[in-house]
């Protein structure tokens, strides 16, 4: 009971989601079965969305769920199913490769953790109490920001910042067009005619 009373719920949920995220990420790394990898990835990304919720970015979190988990992972599953053949096990890499990778990865992790923990201000918590979640309202601000109006910067003194010069209309438009092009391109690539070497030795025979 004592513990419950002093428990910081925010920390509890953070730890829960962080553990899930990292755990399933590691699961992805060490899993050999591609379907399991995709499944773990889903869970990892879903937990990560939980972290986003916790960090006061519910819109990004929901976006993560919708696009990553609902879209990308389904796409991955598609890829898995369309390219599946029996012997995934043959796609293991040699033990030596694992060792080198783990060493380099460990170094990288050490490097990143050092960098993350070095800065003092990143380690000092915010002094006020955590704001209640219900007050967080982000969708409108983000939408306005994407259309070039920074309602969150209205209090700033720099007129350039206030006027919406810091908005993201142009990147938003660029990225929209980019997305469209990518979708068209992906659809095109996925159904281009394929030249496959046929058994008869004629390399140009068309198999559609």
């Amino acid at each position, binding site marked *: 009971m004592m513990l419950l009373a002093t428990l910081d719920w925010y920390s509890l949920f953070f730890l829960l989601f962080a553990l899930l995220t990292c755990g399933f990420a590691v699961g992805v790394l060490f899993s050999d079965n591609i379907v399991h990898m995709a499944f773990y990835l889903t869970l990892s990304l879903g937990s990560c969305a939980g972290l986003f919720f916790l960090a006061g970015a519910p819109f990004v979190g929901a976006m993560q769920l919708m696009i990553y988990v609902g879209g990308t992972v389904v796409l991955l599953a598609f890829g898995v199913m369309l390219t599946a053949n029996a012997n995934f096990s043959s796609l293991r*890499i040699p033990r030596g*490769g694992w060792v*080198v*990778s783990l060493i*380099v*990865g460990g*170094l*990288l992790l050490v*490097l990143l953790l*050092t960098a993350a923990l*070095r800065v003092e201000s990143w380690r000092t918590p915010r002094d006020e109490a955590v704001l209640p979640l219900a007050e967080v309202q982000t969708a409108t601000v983000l939408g306005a920001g994407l259309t070039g109006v920074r309602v969150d910067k209205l209090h700033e003194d720099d007129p350039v910042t206030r006027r919406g010069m810091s908005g993201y209309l142009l990147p938003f438009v660029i990225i929209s067009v980019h997305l469209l092009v990518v979708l068209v391109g992906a659809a095109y690539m996925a159904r281009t005619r394929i030249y496959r070497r046929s058994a008869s030795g004629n390399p140009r025979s068309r198999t559609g």
Partner: protein
Amino acid sequence: MDTSLLPILLGVAVLLPLASFFTLLMIGRWLPQSWSGYIATTAIVTAGLLSFWSLSIWLFNHAPEAGSHQTAEHVASGQMPSVHARLVAQHDQPDGPAPATIPGQEPSPEVASHSPEAASHSPEAASQSPEAEHTSAEHGGKKHAYTDDYYLLGQFGRLRLTISYYIDSLTLVMFCVVSIIASCIHFYSMGYMHEEEGVFTDPEVTMKDGSLLKRPGRYWVFFMYLSLFCFSMLGLLLAGNVAMVFVFWELVGICSYFLIGFYVERKSASNAANKAFIVNRIGDFGMIIGLMALWTGLGTLAFGDVDASGNGTIEKAEQGIFTQVRSEESGYCLATPIGMVRQSARGEVGKWARQHPEAAVNGDTAELDKRLRQLQSERISDGKTPYGYWLLIIAGVGIFCGCVGKSAQFPLHVWLPDAMEGPTPVSALVHSATMVAAGVYLVGRFYPVFTPEVLFVIAIIGVFTLFMAATIAITATDIKRVLAYSTISQLGYMMMALGLGGWLAGMLHLVTHAFFKSLLLMCSGSVIHAVHTNEMPEMGGLRKKMPYTAYTMLVGCLAISGVCLPFLIGFSGYYSKDMILEQAFSFRGANAGWLGSLFFVTATGGAAITAFYMFRLWFMTFAGSPRNEHRYSHAYESPKTIYVPLVILAVFATAVAWHIPFVSVSLQGLLEQARPTGTAATVTSSMLGMTWPNEHIAHLDSQWWTIKFPVTMLATGTALGGILLAAVLYGFGVVNPDDVRRRFNLIYRFLINKWWFDELYDVLFVKPLHQISHVVSRIDQRWIDGLIDGLAWSVRWFARTWERVVDQGLVDGVVNVVGRWTYSIGASLRVVQTGSLRQYVMFLAIALIAIFLIVSFFWSPTLAF
């Protein structure tokens, strides 16, 4: 009903045919064939409705007031308004505010002698300043022309290129005429061209294997061209500046080229199209010279004063051509504009600039202008031609050159008869409302710019053309060619009238002729449609088979002959032709001697000949007994789409020049409103020693017995005489035409060969040109080719040597060495490119770590730890 609507309405009316053209151009090929006809017809009919709307707006705002022609004829002399008198009197004043700025203009005794009544009214008129006269001449202070820019295309120094409009009653009348006739022709074409709707078999083109040419019908192409033609003509009418005029002028030319050569597979058609185009180019060359002369001297392209600043004040730089040529301070008399003076008095300008360097630098030309004016008046008082006057003459003659080409005047008339190769509706359009009318219209439009000398040239050309063409028409047997020569002749009448100072007469004849000539041509088309031949000797007696065509054509013949009940009522041709003859007679009165009489005599004789050949045509075609039974038996009345337009046009050909009872609206009154300011004046050319009488003089009541009565009686008499002769020869067969032909064999040969014009041109221009070309080609092949071959050989030799020594030795060596280095470096680096994705990722990670470590240890240790 505001006049500000006019430019919008007319602009839309111009653009509608263009829209139709583009529609057909883009999708006409795929539309059902009949649709293209509907589209084009809808466009032109709508344009016509808009034109009439505009006309009604105009009439609402500019009711023709008493004092214009028709009232002058009918009002008793005691109530005669003083406009005529004032117009005459004003130029009678030697010491008016603007004394004799016209070169060589002196008070003319002829004018005084022609206007005794005017003299009696002159006391009160004399006290009026020219401004007061001007405002009253401009119909109660209302603007007689609207001009402005639709759109400024660009400004290049002084040159303003704009899309602008110039709207006066002439524009509106011409709009209505063109759109009525074009609408009729569109309807007519829908019937006439129906063979083009499916696969068209061309009866006149034989393929190599002996079969007739079969091709997909070009119904939509035809209507597309018609639309473009209408657009060009309407645009020409609306154009508010010279540049636009030229553009539309050329568009009209190219449209006629397309349409005359519509049956492009026929050799004769494509030749005729080429001929029309090339002959027109000759005229247009002169026109460009004229336009450039105008632009050089006046510095503007616009007709009227364009309010460029948009604040109601007219900037000096934007004074239009008309204002500059007939400026207010010169009393609206033709005066050499100061720009032209400056252009030609370069010596004086240079002298002035040396004396006043600061003003020259500042571009302050007011002083200079004053000096130039002074010089000019000195020269005028010395009796010399003032500075720049020749420039004005060149401009006038140049512009008239263009009109000669378009309106088929001698010596460029040769294209028009050949243009009959086009489909008949096209001929009708070309001959009445569009192409040839453009020339006359332009002369009328540029009338204020023409000096008496230019007018004389116009008159001479016109009178010669009218006679020559009329005589040729006598012997022609091709029904359409008769009409073609008739057109040339009638155009000659118009030109002559304009050249003799009869602006209103010329313009009126343009309108009336448009109606009856389109009627006649479409009737002939109907006949051709029925009998499938153009040759009149194979027709005859068709009256019973095709009554509508016969009687509408009879109306046309009566109209062109100017038949009337004298002084009471007549067909439209009566009014216009009479007016022309009256002006010629008036001119004869003002200028003694054979030259003065030549015009009247020739014109009257021409009228007789006209009546003769028109009725010859009618009798040969419709009267008597059939000469070719086969063709007669297959003849039939044309469908409704063909004869209904004929009936409509017949009504117009009869009544267009009538004075509508109880309303003061008539065609003459309307046209009179558009008369360029200051042109209703008696002018004299000292250079030629001739006088151009004021057009109003011929219609003064005081002159009724001396001009109107004799001329009318004479004209009626000659017309009836011509008709009678035709009836005697062809109608009743009293005299056998063949006997006549044998008796006048020499003249007959002369006429049937069209005065040997084509042969003459062949000998004069074509043959020598061929000879010269031949010689030039020999020089080209022998000498120039040899020289060039030699040059080429030496260059090749040099290039070979250069290649061996420099290129292969030096350049290739360097490039090869560099290439070898690059290759060896690349070969040693390729080991790294294992193609293994995983390895690359490891490289990346290791590099990241390495960079971080290097930076932190060797560069800035505080960054890491």
